[in-house]
């Protein structure tokens, strides 16, 4: 499949820091892509370049097979920024209409689509209400609708679930899967790793303006696995370290072992069978994205990123 979005050697320097420093990756059409990174890693700057708000200092963005043209490609993109809001005094229906028209939809087209989505999300009674009457979660829902209303090929969601209750979060999550199934590509930026594991196919991790990880969720987990296996038994046994493995942790019916270099998981199994251990469960324990994230980011002082002038 053709990648819908390709970034090649993107750079954006501010006067006091390198916000994005030579980042390249590509996103397949129809995938759900996770853009991860600690606060201040350069995610927002990256997204603003993809949405045409900022121009990169250097590098090339290719959207849908052609060089990105911020003026004309706006309709292909739906962007829900992290810092987002609405006009408080404006009626909700009019506001949605206004935002849709700014994306290039005609008035009748926009009205029709708004009605469809409002019905779908049970928001029909909101039309004449004002934004100031809505709770944070409700306005979040409205923002989501206005982001996807013009059926963009590329949907960019920055922390879409913040402030949503589980019911509404699920509603939006289902809709994200739905849109991806229909062929839309979704870029999803967050630092909630459990959501990423649940939703994303492909992730990129940025830190200090540089890409430090790129791959599918499975690939990344494979890459960072530490050969740890969980062994479940019918009775409490205690294993001891030997040449094949080291015991990491022992619970009553469960042992976590780390296989030493040069041995395979079958060697462990053979060894245990020889010892007449009754095994009812044997599986590999992969690291969570959360662990990987912490492992990669911790100690880089990224959360307290210092501002330094660039020579």
């Amino acid at each position: 499949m053709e990648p819908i979005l390709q970034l090649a050697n993107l750079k954006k320097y501010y006067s006091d820091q390198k916000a994005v420093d030579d980042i390249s990756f590509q996103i397949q059409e129809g995938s759900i892509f996770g853009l991860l990174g600690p606060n201040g890693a350069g995610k927002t700057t990256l997204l603003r370049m993809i949405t045409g708000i900022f121009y990169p200092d250097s590098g090339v963005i290719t959207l849908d097979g052609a060089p990105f043209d911020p003026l004309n490609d706006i309709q292909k993109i739906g962007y829900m920024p992290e810092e987002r809001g609405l006009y408080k005094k404006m009626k909700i229906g009019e506001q949605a209409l206004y935002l849709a028209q700014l994306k290039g939809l005609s008035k009748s087209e926009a009205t029709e689509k708004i009605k469809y989505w409002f019905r779908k999300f049970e928001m029909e009674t909101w039309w004449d209400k004002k934004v100031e009457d809505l709770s944070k979660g409700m306005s979040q829902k409205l923002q989501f609708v206005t982001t996807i209303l013009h059926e963009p090929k590329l949907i960019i969601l920055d922390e879409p679930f913040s402030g949503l209750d589980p019911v509404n979060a699920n509603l939006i999550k289902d809709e994200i899967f739905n849109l991806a199934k229909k062929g839309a590509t979704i870029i999803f930026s967050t630092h909630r790793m459990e959501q990423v594991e649940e939703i994303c196919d492909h992730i990129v991790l940025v830190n200090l303006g540089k890409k430090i990880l790129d791959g599918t969720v499975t690939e990344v987990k494979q890459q960072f696995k530490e050969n740890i296996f969980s062994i479940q038994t019918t009775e409490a046994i205690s294993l001891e370290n030997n040449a094949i493995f080291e015991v990491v942790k022992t619970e009553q019916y469960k042992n976590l072992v780390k296989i030493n270099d040069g041995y395979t998981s079958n060697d462990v199994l053979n060894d245990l069978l020889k010892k007449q251990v009754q095994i009812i469960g044997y599986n590999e324990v992969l690291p969570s994205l959360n662990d990987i994230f912490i492992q990669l980011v911790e100690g880089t002082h990224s959360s307290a990123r210092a501002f330094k002038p660039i020579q």
Partner: protein
Amino acid sequence: MNKIWLIIQREYTSRVRNKRFLLVTFLMPVLLVSLIAGSAYLSASGMEHRKIAVLDPNGFIKTALKNTDQISFEFPNNVDTLNYKELGYTDILIIPKFEQNKKADYILRSKKSMGLMLQNSISNKINSAIEDQMLQEAGIQQAVLDSIHQASQVAELKAYEDKGKTSKESNASLAMGIGYASGFLIYLTMFIYGAMVMRGVMEEKTNRIAEVIISSVKPFELMMGKIIGIGAVGLTQFILWISLIISLTSVAMGMLPADVQHQVTTLQQHNGQMVGGMSQASESAMRIYNLQHTIQTANWPLIISCFIFYFLGGYLFYSALFAAVGSVVNEDPQDAQSLMFPITMPLIFSYIITNMVTQNPNTPIAFWASIIPFSSPMVMMARIAYGVPSAVSYWELALSMGILIAGFIFTTWLSGKIYRTGILMYGKKPTWKLMFKWAFKKS
């Protein structure tokens, strides 16, 4: 282009449909008229009556001190400075014996201090009485004196300005009034609509809607849409005010008695003369005619079109600066206050110059202030009221307009650059230094 039109529409309708807009638009003229009427009423009715005892050893002053609504003069014999209050007088005026060429003071003692206007009117009366007395002593007949007095009341200064072959009646006090009113209106609207632009930009920034919109339109379009939309609101307000004033005046004219109306029409048709066996025009008809005649001496099409030009030009010039300030302010309105200062200073300064220029439209400072775009919208309006090309030559007007257009293009361009960076920047303390950095950095 289509998108900027959408933004203009939103900015315009959301404000025009606002109840506050309707309230201000329709109540403002009513409030203004009732304020003027009210203060006129108060100043007429609130005046106390003064009863002044006059001690005059000369005798001839008695005829000069005529009683008015406010003051009555009496000439009792038994009054002095100790007992005038008990005898029911508010003041006592002691006039010395006047002798030729000898300077003498007359003294006024009062229960309550007397206002300057009253004091002046009393001293004028006494001085002219002394003058008359001296003229009579020099041998001039009373009848001659009376006829001189009458003549000086009949004559009136009529100024004409020569424009090529035709000369046109001009009226300096009307020009001063128009100049002051239009200068003041522009000054007021710069503040009101400039601040409205600034608040609008701040709202977009603090509500965090700016980034949502900017992912659909360019920041410059958003800024211009807002400025143009609010400018259109201002223009609408002016047009409504003008039509309201015109219709209120015609309603007031319609309520005049029929014969007065008829007389006014006759006067208009015959250049201020009553004709054809008709009786003399009544005083009120004469007054209305004179007012209308005076107002007609001004070149209204020129004044109104210049007013609209300078309102729009000045508005665009200043509102762009206000927008730039709004875009760099974070949450704190106090930051806005201190950043606004460099913008409001030239505005206030221009207003002060305008006040001077309304009285004297052709000083060097008036010239320069009507060329520099910071002050030209206000100052030039004050000068234009005195007539083009008699007070302001065509090249001056063209230069001033040209520089104002260049000026607002420059401020808009500059503010666009500040705005683009500022609107998405949170958490940085806004300073003018920062704004300059953003304005002049390479894109």
